């Protein structure tokens, strides 16, 4: 394990930015989001949830993947390159877990090569959480607030120092390049990390227990809930906006669209939301999910039943963004409670 004095972080970022495009939580107009690092950027490592999760770095909100040229009846199609290497610094364990979850879908056969290439180009440096937010419930999903097993490098904030541990070859390769900035951690470091992890997890688990936000058995409980009345109640106040889906670290639905300028044009894929009425609207006007009820049900069933059925993992990491940001407080913990898992 290594460590770095927090005063040296700007030097570290500068070096990382030389290696690859560096994204980290930056505060601008009072909002903290993952943004490219530049000198003087107001990096904020205290915020737990950036407003938008770093999902967009592996799965951009819109992504051009081919250029076409149309001339009369002639068509030319040329694939476009994916952006080069990048580093994500300071991703929280829940957000990293979100990426690991959508990996399962995109890397599943047939492999989504666009996603894979972008994913392979990135190195993720996680930052463990010391304290939970009021809306945190990652422990419900067997995640650890203080540790991210899916990151390439894990770091922990110990006040004066950031502890640094590469977790795989990619992480080791990057760490090797930063040798002069990192120093060996002392013998107590591993113990300190262990304590941080345990404290963070137990604190959050207590909150989860208090609210009844545990998810054990929810998948099984939802298996016969397609026609349940739980949906009658929860969907009614839904405004049909895409806040929950677009801020979710695991939502991954997309649309494919063309943009043209005369004979030239681009095809791109972009985020789409199952909350929108036109998401499943067919060309001839029929819609298998005609009202917000079916759409809300789809969103929660997808996260808590369909995704785990297909990939053996819930498509929720308990980051709490939907809990915090839904304009009318439709929140997944309410569905979890209403579904009623096994005690």
């Amino acid at each position: 394990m290594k460590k770095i004095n927090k005063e040296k972080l700007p030097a570290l970022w500068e070096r990382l930015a030389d290696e690859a495009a560096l994204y980290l939580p930056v505060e601008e107009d009072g909002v903290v989001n993952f943004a490219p690092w530049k000198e003087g950027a107001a990096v904020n490592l205290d915020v737990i949830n950036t407003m938008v999760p770093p999902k967009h770095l592996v799965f951009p909100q819109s992504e051009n993947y081919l250029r076409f040229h149309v001339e009369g009846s002639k068509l030319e199609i040329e694939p476009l390159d994916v952006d080069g290497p990048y580093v994500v610094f300071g991703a929280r364990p829940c957000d990293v877990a979100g990426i690991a979850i959508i990996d399962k879908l995109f890397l599943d056969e047939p492999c989504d090569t666009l996603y894979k290439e972008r994913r392979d180009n990135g190195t993720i440096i996680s930052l463990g959480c010391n304290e939970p937010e009021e809306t945190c419930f990652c422990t419900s999903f067997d995640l650890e607030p203080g540790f991210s097993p899916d990151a390439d490098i894990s770091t922990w904030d110990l006040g004066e120092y950031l502890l640094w541990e590469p977790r795989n070859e990619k992480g080791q390769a990057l760490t090797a390049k930063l040798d002069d900035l990192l120093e060996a951690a002392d013998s107590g470091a591993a113990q300190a990390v262990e304590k941080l992890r345990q404290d963070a997890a137990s604190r959050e688990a207590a909150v989860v227990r208090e609210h009844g936000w545990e998810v054990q058995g929810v998948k099984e409980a939802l298996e016969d809930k397609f026609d349940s009345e739980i949906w009658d109640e929860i969907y009614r106040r839904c405004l049909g906006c895409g806040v929950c889906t677009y801020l979710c670290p695991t939502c991954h639905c997309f649309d494919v669209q063309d943009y043209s300028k005369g004979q030239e044009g681009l095809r791109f894929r972009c985020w789409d939301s199952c909350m929108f009425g036109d998401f499943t609207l067919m060309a001839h006007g029929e819609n298998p999910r005609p009202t917000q009820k079916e759409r809300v049900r789809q969103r929660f069933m997808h996260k808590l039943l369909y995704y785990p059925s297909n990939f053996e993992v819930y498509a929720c990491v308990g980051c709490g963004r939907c809990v915090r940001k839904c304009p009318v407080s439709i929140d997944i913990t309410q569905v979890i409670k209403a579904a009623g898992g096994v005690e």
Partner: protein
Amino acid sequence: MSVSAEEQAFEPLIIVFGCNWCSYAGGDLAGTSRMSYPPNVRVIRVPCSSRVSPNFVLRAFQRGADGVLVAGCHPGDCHYVTGNYYARRRLSALRRFLEFIGIEPERFEVHWISGSEGAKFAKVMGEVTEKIRALGPNRKMRDVR
């Protein structure tokens, strides 16, 4: 002050939404009377100045217009009696709003030009073109793809 090659060679592109009943006819008259006006101007015929939706204006800027001009009948002379009175309010609100977003107000103009004012049409087009030329290329709402 250094001027880039692009700016030196800058020829503004101006989209004019011209009312079918007056300004478009005014443009025709300018043409048939052999009054010249700058080739920078591309006229799109609309049934009335009140037909000009803000969507049209923004799309013109997105797709490369350096200036947008709406040309309609003089107030009181609308073919549909009141269309341009509505347009006056709506386009006024739009013009101030575009300025609030940061787009120089000179880039969005409204003029009343009747079917008999061929000379005025040519003169306005000339003036607008020069004004936009002086402002330089517009990049503020341009779709860069």
